[in-house]
């Protein structure tokens, strides 16, 4: 399956919380490929794509974090005006909802990589593939 595993980390809103996560990962030699911080008034959830999911999860748990995993989808987006719109339009036709999305740090040739979280992941992958978009498999994304 062309899903990508995202790690989520529960964080209280307090100084140093984020820094501790990045330090723990750095010390374990884990490379963060993409990240996004979802913030509410009370707490935050840090979403990460890393090069070694299992190791990162283990290290984070050992350091006392509450770690979750979510299936997300990495899609190549043509780096030109309307590139993203084309994708969203095709999803909208299929009535697939995007819960959140964020961009990858690196690019893949002429393409940007966007991480999507859908309410119907499998259907979204099918639909995007049929419409001619490139959905990147997990292994490819982790090792970019």
């Amino acid at each position, binding site marked *: 399956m062309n899903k990508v595993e995202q790690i*989520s980390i*529960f964080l209280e809103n307090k100084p140093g919380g984020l820094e501790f996560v990045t330090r723990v990962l750095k010390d374990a030699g884990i490379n963060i490929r993409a990240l996004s911080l979802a913030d509410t008034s009370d707490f935050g*959830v840090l979403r990460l794509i890393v090069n070694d999911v299992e190791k990162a999860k283990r290290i984070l748990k050992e350091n*006392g*974090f*509450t*770690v*979750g*995993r*979510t299936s997300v989808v990495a899609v190549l987006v043509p780096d030109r005006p309307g590139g993203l719109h084309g994708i969203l339009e095709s999803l909208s036709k299929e009535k697939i909802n995007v819960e959140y999305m964020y961009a990858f740090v690196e690019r893949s040739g002429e393409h940007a990589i966007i991480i999507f979280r859908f309410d119907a992941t499998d259907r979204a992958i099918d639909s995007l593939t049929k419409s001619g978009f490139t959905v990147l498999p997990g292994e490819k994304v982790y090792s970019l």
Partner: protein
Amino acid sequence: MIYNEEFETLPREALEALQVKRLQQVVQRVYHTVGFYKRSFDNAGVKPDDIKTLDDLRRLPFTTKQDLRDNYPYGLFAVPMSSVVRVHASSGTTGRSTVVGYTKRDIDTWSELMARCFVMAGLTKNDIIHNAYGYGLFTGGLGAHYGAERLGASVIPISGGNTKRQIMILQDFAPTAICATPSYALYLAEQGEEMGVDMRSLKLRVGVLGAEPWSEKMRRQIEDKLNITALDIYGLSEVMGPGVAMECTEARQGLHIFEDHFIAEIIDPETGETLPEGETGELVFTTVTKEAFPLVRYRTRDVSRLVKAPCRCGRTLVRMDRITGRSDDMLIIRGVNVYPSQIEGVLLNVPGIEPHYMLIVDREGTLDTLEVQVEVGETVFAETGEVKVLQELSRRITKDIKDYLGISSKVKLVEPKTIQRFEGKAKRVIDRRTI
């Protein structure tokens, strides 16, 4: 089955008439034989003759643990030592212990009440009872022992400790029932498992467990690990010992108090007012038949609730909720009495959070605020790792607290293992209000 059909199923009116009669007798007796009660009644301006109905009970002053300590060791005995056949004492973790005495008739009554408890638990003379309550100054061991003998069951007076031997005896002597504290029952189960014993296939079928507060969750664990029905028994040495109240197998919803011997009240621990039936507060007992150590309106500091509704087991005796906490821990938030244990009860029913919490009470302007800090567990988050799941969790807790306790709160989800762990008694409340 009911051990004493007549007294356990008395119509409420007849029961209350009996209580009034016995109350009047005990009030007369303590007033004339125990210096402490004479002084305390006189100070409150109440005479034994003023007690005409059950409602008059609330005119009598309370007796506290401190009063018991002040009269250490025999000051509250209402009979000469020549009539006392036994003493027990509660362990005094702070200061002096409290000493209680029993006449021959008191022991007789106690034995009967314990026999009633065993029958309420579904036991008969054909049962073999493994009695792991401590024998000695503690009332548990001998109390259960006499009751089991009264019933005609076979008692294994194993007492506490020496767990390996206990597990061997559970296998070899094939007891069908066990008396122990819930934590010891669980410990036995776990140690047995570790020794490679199949603890579920023992002959045990019933546990009569008490002498400490425990939760439904713990009950399920014990029942699962030992493959038994675990029932709650309540008692305290000051009032008698185990056997003041017992849960029936039929309903398992509250413990029947033996009201022909004890009158129970629920009071507001702050004001001392008697609360209406069904409200949560501090449990207060008056013993109406005890000879050596009668107690009038003894404040147990245990938090409970009384329900008089008829029970499906056929008993008319009032039921008390399992003890959920100590009245000393009560908070008053916007005029509402709240016990940390009630909030704990709400939290235990919410899947996905750890049983570690902290209550922060503060005041904004003139309004009290309650913040409930709860640790987020792995389970709820691991599935999806989504923000909305946590927000729903937080909303649900707020709503449940509002529904059950009638107070608004702010829930703060915190990282695991960040709430301080406590050895022994947990401190769950930070009250920042300054009066």
